[in-house]
Every structure is written in C-alpha cells, then in structure tokens.
C-alpha cells in the first residue's frame, strides 16, 4: 500500500522464475481444462461416442437454453447475487470490524454463531426455516434474500475481519487530526484502503446468491426460476448435454469476469 519495495529483497533468479511460470501455467490449465469439453458440448448439435470431436456443430444447445428461459434466469440470478452481495458485504464489514478490534464480549462465541451457516446442511436450513418464514407470512423473495444473506455472512465476516486486523488505524487517526469528519474518514480513507477486501467479500457473497438451488427453489416457492434451477432440471436427464453446457457456461462466465474485476481492484489498490 504505497510502500516502496525493499531494495534489499533478493530478485528472483531465472530458475525460480521459470518454476513459478510453470506453476502458474499448470494452475491455469487446471482451471481452464474442465471448461474445454463444456465449450465443445455447447456448440455440438451431435456428439456421439466414440468420436473425439462433435460430428455436427450448431446452436441447438443455445436455442434449447433460451427456450428453457435462460435469459430471464440469467437476469434473476444476477439480481439475486447483487442483492445478497449488497446486504452481506456491509453487514460482514461491520461484524468483521467489531470482531477485529476486540470490542465484542465473547468474540469467539459470536464468531462461531456467524460461521454456523457453514456447518449446517443448506437443505436442512431451507426446509426448517421455510415453515417458519411461511408462518410469519414473509414474502418468498424476501425470505430467499434473507436466508442467502445469512449464508453469505460467514464469508464476508471472516474476510473483513482479517482485513480490519491488518488495517492500520493510524491512517484514520491522522485524517481526523488533519480535520476530516468521521464521515469523510470512512469514505475517503478507510473504504479506499479496504477496497480490495470489500471487493473480495462482495464477490463471495454474490456467488452465494448466484449459485444457490435449494433455498431459491424451496423458500422462493418456484417464483424465482434462476440459472441454477434451470441447470439442475436440465441436467437431470441424458440427451440435454448441449443445453446444459450452454447453461453452465452462462453460470461460469459472470463469476469469472467478476473475479478478474476483483483482481484488478486489488492490483490497483496495491499499485
């Protein structure tokens, strides 16, 4: 963060650099290889064994996916992911800051409660709370957002707790000394310094809303037909491979784009 590199730090030797590059390449291959058959399937009108490549290329998969409602499903998933991120990120940041600065009595216990959604099977949570939400008369979209926000809180809290623990409050004190208001300090000093962590937390929270099946279906009462619902139902039978591939790719690409964006935020903040 604005610090110059220590000139005494040893430079990478060529050999170590080579190994590092090989490692990066292997990691990239590990991540990209599973996408190759997906891309092939998405453009395959006919691909039967033992052919190595599809025998007929086309857009049947895309057409089927659109017919199945991929367009609106994509929009719904995006909105759901964004809403969950918009709620879980500030909540996680507040919880993380409180926990990191040790102002919370029984901080360990509070953290354990916040993390508990990680250890409970989502299916059981969805089924148990569904009845409660129905009894309380909570509208189903609100119920979905509520449950998914709670499910996203462990990720945002842990990430922001670590970020606040590493955060030097001296910058904020200095800004105050120089006459900044509390509000200015938060928006012009604290948040820019924490931007990479916030972007990461928001990304994880987005993924929780983006990829959920069971809560969206059960608590949402089928009113929110998102991409994961379409993928799961299409993937429940043989013969839909092209459609499933198109749907899966449309589920994978937005997070990838976001990941790159989050990486850029982090890089800019470090530069």
């Amino acid at each position: 963060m604005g610090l110059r590199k220590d000139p005494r730090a040893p430079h990478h030797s060529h050999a170590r650099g080579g190994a590092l590059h090989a490692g990066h390449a292997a990691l990239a291959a590990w991540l990209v290889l599973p996408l190759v058959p997906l891309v092939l399937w998405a453009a395959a009108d006919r691909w039967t064994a033992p052919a190595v490549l599809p025998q007929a290329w086309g857009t049947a998969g895309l057409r089927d996916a659109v017919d199945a409602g991929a367009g609106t499903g994509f929009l719904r998933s995006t909105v759901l992911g964004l809403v969950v991120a918009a709620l879980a990120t500030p909540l996680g940041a507040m919880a993380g800051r409180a926990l990191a600065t040790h102002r919370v009595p029984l901080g360990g216990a509070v953290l354990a409660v916040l993390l508990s959604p990680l250890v409970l099977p989502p299916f059981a949570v969805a089924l148990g709370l569904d009845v409660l939400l129905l009894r309380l008369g909570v509208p189903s979209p609100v119920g979905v957002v509520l449950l998914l926000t709670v499910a996203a809180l462990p990720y945002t809290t842990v990430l922001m707790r670590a970020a606040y623990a590493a955060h030097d409050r001296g910058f904020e004190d200095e800004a105050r000394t120089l006459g900044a208001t509390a509000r200015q300090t938060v928006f012009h000093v604290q948040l820019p310094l924490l931007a990479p962590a916030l972007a990461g937390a928001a990304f994880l929270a987005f993924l929780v809303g983006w990829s959920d099946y069971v809560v969206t279906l059960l608590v949402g009462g089928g009113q929110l037909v998102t991409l994961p619902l379409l993928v799961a139902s299409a993937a429940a039978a043989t013969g839909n491979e092209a459609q499933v591939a198109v749907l899966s790719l449309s589920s994978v690409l937005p997070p990838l784009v976001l990941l790159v964006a989050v990486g850029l935020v982090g890089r800019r903040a470090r530069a």
Partner: protein
Amino acid sequence: MAAGRRRSITAGAALLALAGCAAPSSEAPEAADRPWDDVLAEADGQTVDLWMYGGDEAGNAYVDDVLAPAAAGLGVTVRRVPVADTGDALDRVLSERQAGVTDGEVDLVWVNGENYATGRQAGAWLCDWALDLPNREHTDPDDPLLENDFGVPVEGCESPWHKAQFTLVYDSARVPEPPTTLAGVLDWAQANPGRFTYPAPPDFTGSVFVRQVLSSVAAGPGEVPLEYSQEAYDEYAPALFDRLAELDPALWRGGETYPQSQQELDRLFADGEVDMTMTYGPATLTDLVADGTVPPTTRVLTLEEGTFGNASFLAIPSTSGDAAGAQVVADLALSPEQQVAKADPGTWGQFTVLDLERLDEADRAAFEQLPASPVVPPYEELSQNAQAELSADWVGPLDEGWRRSVLAP
C-alpha cells in the same frame, strides 16, 4: 422421483422441527362439490404453477407450446416450474402445509408412486375432484392403472395424465439376437461379461428393474403379492438377491460399481460401454434416436412375460390457492385433443390414459392416425401382459435388501 428415502426423512424432519406447533391433520382436504361451470368461472384469471420434472425437453415444450396456450384460451395462465426432482415440489407443499398456508405457490404437480404416497400420508393432496372432471368420462373406470398408483388408491386425489411401461432397450447392431424374457436377459448378461448393468437402487429405474427381476425369479408375474408383508418378503426376496449377486461379477466393471441413475446408464449405453439400457418412460427414446444421442439401431426389447406398467398423474396440493384453475388445467390435459397431441411421437409421445372405445369417431380416428415412432412400438404391443406395480411399501425394503445383499455383501 428417485429420492423417496430423502423425502421421508425430510417429512420426518419437518414434523420434528415443528413438534410443539399445531400439527396439520393428515386428513386430505376435499374440494367443494359444485357445478363445473362454477369451477370454470372461478378459474378465469388464475395463474397455475405447474411444478414438474424439467429434464424432459419434449415434455417442457409440450407444456409451454401446446397445453399452456390452450389453457390461456380458458382464461388460465400456466406457469411451468422446472425441478430436478419431483420431491422438491413435495418438500415445498409439506412446508406450506406445516405452516397452514392456504394460498401456496404450488398448484399442480406431475407426480406418481412414492411422492404421491408420501403426500397422501401427510394430507398434502386435495381430494375428491379428479373423478368429477368432465373429460374423465373418456377413461375406463375399471382401468387398474388409474385406480391405484403403486398400490395407493387414487380416489379422485390426482387426475391421470399418461401411461408408461417399464422397457428394456438394446442396440440391435450389438445384440443381433436379443433374449425374449427377463430370465433370458440375465443369462445373456452373464454370457457377455461387462456388457450389462443397471442403476443402483434407490434410483427409480434401478429399483423397478430389481422388482422386475423379483417377479421373474418368483416363477412369473402374479406370483408375488402386490401388498407388502414381511412373510412375502422373506419368501421371495432371497431368491432375487441370490440371482442378482450371482450376476454381479458379470456386470459392467465386474459389478464393482453401478451407475447412480438411469441417466448414467443411458450415457454408458450412448457411449457403447454397455449394450442395453432401461427406462420407465420410453416416450423419450424417439427423440434420443432422432438427435443422435443413442445409435439409430436402438430398439425396444419386449418381454414375453410383460413388464410393469404405471400411470402418472396431475395432483393439486391441498395448500393451492388456485385449485379451480388447477382443476381446469387437469381437465384440459385429459381432453382428447390434448391427449392426442401429447401422444404424437413428434410432440412428446406419451401414451394416452383415455379408453379409445369411449371416444367419438373423430377423436378415435385422430389417435389411430398418429404417426408411429420408428423406435417405440405402440402401447398395445408394449403393454402386452402388463403387470401391476407392487405396492410402494415393497420399494424401501427391496432397495435396502439390495444394498446389503448385492452391493456390499
């Protein structure tokens, strides 16, 4: 449909979670007895959420492009909710019932077998409406497939939609002289190691296969009582498991592992790893051949002794707020026009539940003029010597017995 076990656990969990709260009665609520015109009038303007297994593209297209527009003509909007497993719909209904909801989000469910039975036990289905649908007169009141759903009485709590027949499927290029009985199939599998397998129960299809073998080793159809009892299980199950355990080493991968679902078995068949597959929904075969998923030489194997047949239904949850609209859609789905459109192999190819004898001349002619599927024989041929499905109570013990005696002896 395969997740019956999970279903009963979740039903139990839901009950436990709410112990202390007022438990809903397991009595099925009954639809009000009133003239059909009143139902039609109330249905006008309603939106019916039809929850159905979404893995069948032809089925999705039929509902979206044929059934829904026809329902719109009656003032009812059909909204299809695709689910990976019919049990997901039941889970939602059970939650709504626990919470005492009366304007729930599920109005119609494509269902049969265990999910229907579980729902019946919990009073999740609206009753006393399906027999009053005007188009019901086109069905045979004594049709055993429409009277019982896997041994559970239908009794107007669900309306028939289509019939299905358990079917073995083979590649005629790889099996030029197919066996003609199930015993013959098992012998063939043993003589051709690695070329046959079946989905592991409790997969829906694997479970049917095991019941079919039970019937075969028990000296033929009709020998095993449809009603489950411990005595009947002790009498007939050991021979079944002995036969399947004997077959095990000759299966695909030496029986070390089994496909987890019919879908996996279909994939093995499509990739040429095994020579046979099996399905309770042969209607999809026409499409699978047409789009090249399975070889063009794929054929249906009709067994001399016949196979299990069943019907699937449309049920209205007791929590539905649009029950009138749901009844109108169920009636529409039963109309000769919709049944003949759905039976066309180019649309969905599902066998009709109507009795052709009870149709007028023109409707009967429409059924008779349907193009034949190049793969799937007509229902009359498939359902020859059709056997009645064992009661749903058999399913759990047989699946569990198979796991202990065949999978991990």
